[in-house]
């Protein structure tokens, strides 16, 4: 009986999602209390919530899980994709209170509390997903205190923009990670990299120096890398004026380059292509992508709202090497000089399918040829 009264106390703690279009969803609070504003997005991945929470690409965003039961297998200290939780808020249908897995250390509630992130559960997440799907990305706020003046709160919501996303998530200083079996040295531009990019490279015998997003090419040269990796990251790619400017000269170094997600978009922009905001972003672990070279389809993990417009890639620069099997949007570019290729999806997975890990092998092969 003690338990159910404890439960009752918890249930009493209401929380709200207020959207910029005026919709209010009433649910219950978990994680931290207070108010948090962000862009509301959803992801359809059915596993990998800890990876999602700690993925820097979600910087500034309130993430909704379409799968209703979240936290089932708990959270631990190893499945993080970065040092902290980046989402501004977290929305689930049900937050599991009694997770079960041999590695589980924390409940989702405990984890968010420890990171001071606001969570909301108990709302119709499917209805919310449909709304976001039709509207595109929408600003919103999760709050445990219903604002007194809702109208002015909503008009303020509309003004929210994510600024300096990359700057906020990128490291401040370069750091080198040595692999046990070091065959290559790679510089990883940190636009908000996921830890599994690092792991995937290190597992393949690469020492990796992670550098801040605005590191100049001159500095890169002093590191004499065998390869350069452009990481994933948050936000609108076109806002990244400084990184784009740096990347314009990248090809001249004649060092193999692999770009992922934001890294893919930035290199395309630097080479004269254009990007657009997708009507329906791709967020989930079930996205089919066609690899043009292999004439194969792979299921990939994705998390992006912007995409490179395939036919804006100058012919001299490169060609679309991957495209989405669903909406045919550009998912990868191979550069004509043969030294660079980039993909929109996440070959490093975590969470999501590992079917495109072969791209890391391709990158290694490019470096091996150079050596």
């Amino acid at each position: 009986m003690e338990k159910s009264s404890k439960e009752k106390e918890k249930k009493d703690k209401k929380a709200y999602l207020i959207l910029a279009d005026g919709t209010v969803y009433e649910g219950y609070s978990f994680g931290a209390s207070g108010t948090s504003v962000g862009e509301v997005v959803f992801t359809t991945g059915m596993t990998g919530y800890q990876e999602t929470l700690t993925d820097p690409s979600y910087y500034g965003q309130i993430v909704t899980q379409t799968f209703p039961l979240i936290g089932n297998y708990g959270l631990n200290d190893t499945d993080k994709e970065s040092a902290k939780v980046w989402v501004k808020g977290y929305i689930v249908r049900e937050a599991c209170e009694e997770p079960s897995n041999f590695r589980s250390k924390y409940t989702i509630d405990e984890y968010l509390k420890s990171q001071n992130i606001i969570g909301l559960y108990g709302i119709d997440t499917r209805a919310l997903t449909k709304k976001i799907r039709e509207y595109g990305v929408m600003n919103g706020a999760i709050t445990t205190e219903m604002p007194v003046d809702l109208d002015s709160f909503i008009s303020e919501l509309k003004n929210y923009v994510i600024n300096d996303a990359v700057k906020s998530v990128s490291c401040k200083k370069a750091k080198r990670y040595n692999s046990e079996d070091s065959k290559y040295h790679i510089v990883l531009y940190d636009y908000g990299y996921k830890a599994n990019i690092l792991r995937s490279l290190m597992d393949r015998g690469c020492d990796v120096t992670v550098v801040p997003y605005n590191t100049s090419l001159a500095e890169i040269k002093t590191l004499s890398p065998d390869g350069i990796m452009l990481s994933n990251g948050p936000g609108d790619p076109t806002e990244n004026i400084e990184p784009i400017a740096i990347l314009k000269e990248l090809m001249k170094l004649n060092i193999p380059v692999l770009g992922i997600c934001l890294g893919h978009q930035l290199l395309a922009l630097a080479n004269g292509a254009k990007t657009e905001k997708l009507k329906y972003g791709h967020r989930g672990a079930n996205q089919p992508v066609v690899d043009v070279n292999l004439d194969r389809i792979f299921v990939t993990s994705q998390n992006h709202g912007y995409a490179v417009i395939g036919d804006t890639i100058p012919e001299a620069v490169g060609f679309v090497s991957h495209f989405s099997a669903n909406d045919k949007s550009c998912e990868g570019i191979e550069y004509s000089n043969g030294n660079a290729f980039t993909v929109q999806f996440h070959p490093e997975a975590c969470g999501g399918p590992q079917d495109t890990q072969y791209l890391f092998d391709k990158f290694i092969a490019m470096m091996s040829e150079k050596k």
Partner: protein
Amino acid sequence: MPLRKDIKKILVIGSGPIIIGQAAEFDYAGTQMCRSLKDDGLEVVLVNSNPATIMTDKTMADKVYIEPLTIPVLKKIISEEKPDSILPTMGGQTALTLSMQLAKEGFLEEENVKLLGATPEIIDKAEDRQLFKDMLESIGEPVIPSKVVTNIVDALEFAEEIGYPIIVRPAYTLGGTGGGIAKNREELTIIGENGLRLSPITQILIEKCVSGWKEIEFEIIRDSKNNTITVCSMENVDPVGVHTGDSIVIAPAVTLSDKEYQMLRTASINIIQALGVEGGCNCQFALNPHSFEYAVIEVNPRVSRSSALASKATGYPIAKVSTKIAIGYTLDEILNSVTGKTYACFEPALDYVVVKFPKWPFDKFVYAKRELGTQMKATGEIMAIGTYFEQAMMKAVRCIELGLDTLNLPKLKNKKTKTILELLHNCDDERIFVVYAALKRGIDIDTIHDITKIDKWFISKLNNLVNLELELAHGELTEEKYKKAKKFGFLDTTIEKISGQKPPLKLYASYKMVDTCAAEFSAETPYFYSTYDDENEAAEFIEEHESGKKKIIVFGSGPIRIGQGIEFDYCSVHCVTALKEEGYEAIIVNNNPETVSTDFDISDRLYFEPLTPEDVESIIETEKPWGVVVQFGGQTAIKLTKFLKKKGMNILGTSADSIDEAEDRERFDKLLEKCAIPRPNGKMAFTTEEAVKEAKELGFPVLLRPSYVLGGQNMIIAYKESDVVEYMNIITSVELENPVLIDKYLMGTELEVDAVCDGEDFLIPGIMEHIERAGVHSGDSISVYPPQTISEDVRNSIIEYTGKLAKELKVLGLVNIQYVLYEGQVYVIEVNPRSSRTVPYISKVTNVPIVDLATKVMLGASLKELGYKSGVCEEGEYVAVKVPVFSFPKLHDADNHLGPEMKSTGEVLGIDKDFETALFKGLIGAGYELHKVGNCVLITVKDADKPEIVPLAQKFIDFGYKICATKGTGKYLMANGIPAIVINKDGGPSPNTTDLFDSGEVDFVVSTSKIGRKPAVQSVKMRRKAIERNIACLTSIDTANALANCLLMNKSIEDFKMVDIVKI
């Protein structure tokens, strides 16, 4: 790659009769496949012995052969039809094994026939234990330590090496038949020997037992370009040790972190790519709950029960996509029919959870061993969809039709906590209810987990339901509590019962769409499940798709069980088709994931829901239908009648009152009196004393049964007072709502009709005659159309009575009437104003579209308008013999003696121009060997049957058999001039019946006994031993006679022509 140019004509092999381990899922798969092939303009030749299927409809293929699924039959059909390809992966293990055999014999090569989807090499790699192990080891996938052995000595030796417990898996058997877990040397000796005997190649796998590990399954699809996707993951609530067909399953897997999930997903992809399967495939894994250690348990290189479940759970049509791949398409060329925008090359994302719950036949086989292990025992299953696990579980419990609305099993209620704790150790069909009872007694989650190894996640979810019950039971039923209970799947009636209070408000369910993509894209699937949210997508869908047509809900028949099988799905689907043709919107409510009716493109809208009044009420609230149909969904749908009537629904067809009149003993008696139709004398009783008194008055033998049942549940023939007492003691152990019916038992010829009536006229497509005399349930009898022995007078009486009854009962639509012919007089035994199990086969052989007509009649058409005269249809050129098929080998300790209680799980049909040939084909189709293998027949019968076995024994002797008999029977035979070798009964000194069976000399056993059922009874034990040794066991003299007559024909199946039913 588009459609292959070298494919023009395909042979499709079905899975044959429904047996445990191979149920309706292959009708669903086969139907999707046939449609898909025809879409591509291919010529389809279909062979399946099961007449109750939709795939054997004349419109499904260009040529349809309802013939035995044996090698000689297939060879004959292939030689005549000359298909260029065979699709072997859609007809279960049956089709796969047959195809492989044809290929291995070199026959396919000779005939220039290709195997699509999987080659013999692929199939061998997946099914031959050693090749499978080698294949997995070559790609670095872990296997459980195991060894293939062909004798028991090697088995025992290897077991010592790896330690007990040991799992025994016989090679090439269906649903794990003959397998089991052995905890020690003695057990391994028994199970191992049994497995070796049952394996067609005398081969078993001895394997380290990893029971207690998590059991995880993946459904995978691969195309010829090596594109591979996983459709769905599934997690068994019951950990490794219980056959996945007997496990409660949740989809998607929930207790796996992304690391574990991706590890197993990648393993599945590696396996299917290494195998080279083109199409659907299923991988089962054991995962150590304490580490990342895992092992591959099994791979099915074909569409399976799990793929049917995965299809319904996700909306992804695995059978259809597999078919397209087999004929050349690749995943990126096949459109996702759900979204109409995306392609089949994607992985479904779910925003709900699905719970599968098995339906076991233990209510029929009260004395069968309920323990669950590696051998599947369930006859069917249901699926429930919910936004919460608790909700899905509560729905599942209602779907399964055990009379429960919560997880509280009444018989556990008064058990001591100590007893419950003990019961937790039993791994049987009631384990989940014992777990629930344990939680209610305050036994903690850890203890329950330690005993059952069920993951704590599931136990704590069940505990949430326990806590909610507690909350409801204490204090005021607030709005908040009520809403929470609704979200967790409680019915209003349940909430009221637990809380003792009226709910403060009435909430109806809202509906969400199953769209394969978790709402990422807009979808058009008319496939819904209920939950309690504000947004009602079904209502929105109805509004957006307003057609102006009248809406009619057709209630389906729920899980496949003995007595209510696939035939009702056939009827439901045909009703929907007819409704659509007539310009109505047809809506299906059903919860069986194995069936065609639950394919979302069959009806205008599909609701995957329990079939209880309250669940149905919410659907009605959303749909606001013009009418409802209960006639085609078996007793499950009929049971809704009273409620629907109260709700003021327009019940199409026979009225609720008439249904009651047919089922209520007193009213029915009056009706018969009025029509001057005789019936066996009958009485009613509520208590044992009453029953004994009435039985004595009627005179033994009498037939006892509860009213309102289907499939003869709990029905017996009592020969003496003690039989009545035993029966009444069992039946009165639960509260009796309706009286027990006691009828004078007339041992005559049973006759049966299905008729369509429009209120004025009636149409009997055909009269059926049973080979077994009354007393054997009609579903277990060999049924013959048209009748072979009845006189014109009898025929006329049947027609007359049927007409009278139909008219008096005001039947609108279908009625099934059973008669018995006794000493020249026709009596009515039963009238069922609904569809029956014989409808599909009679439709096929008479060419009368029975369900179609019944549906149109219900909508107001008259038979005259539809072009039919009143009365019986002219008999066709062909004779059709329906032969029942049983699943006794899977059900330990179940008595196979036929009686008034139905025991068969499926049926086959034999068709030919004469009765003898049709019967011959039917028996072959049902699995009987009609040629000599051994050299003797064992006869042991009860006294009453003795006079009849003399001519029977003579027939066997004429065929060249020696007769063996037990003492009494032998004496009788010899006294009547039949030479018989007398042997001792089971358990007696050598030579006894067991020795005889083990000698391999016995081809048939004819055994009847007065008392049976209980496993300890000697005759039951003896028959079980025969079954375990695959010896045909005949428990009705009539069946034995029919079979002996076929033997004396001295023919083989090659001597007969194969019949394409499209042409008849």
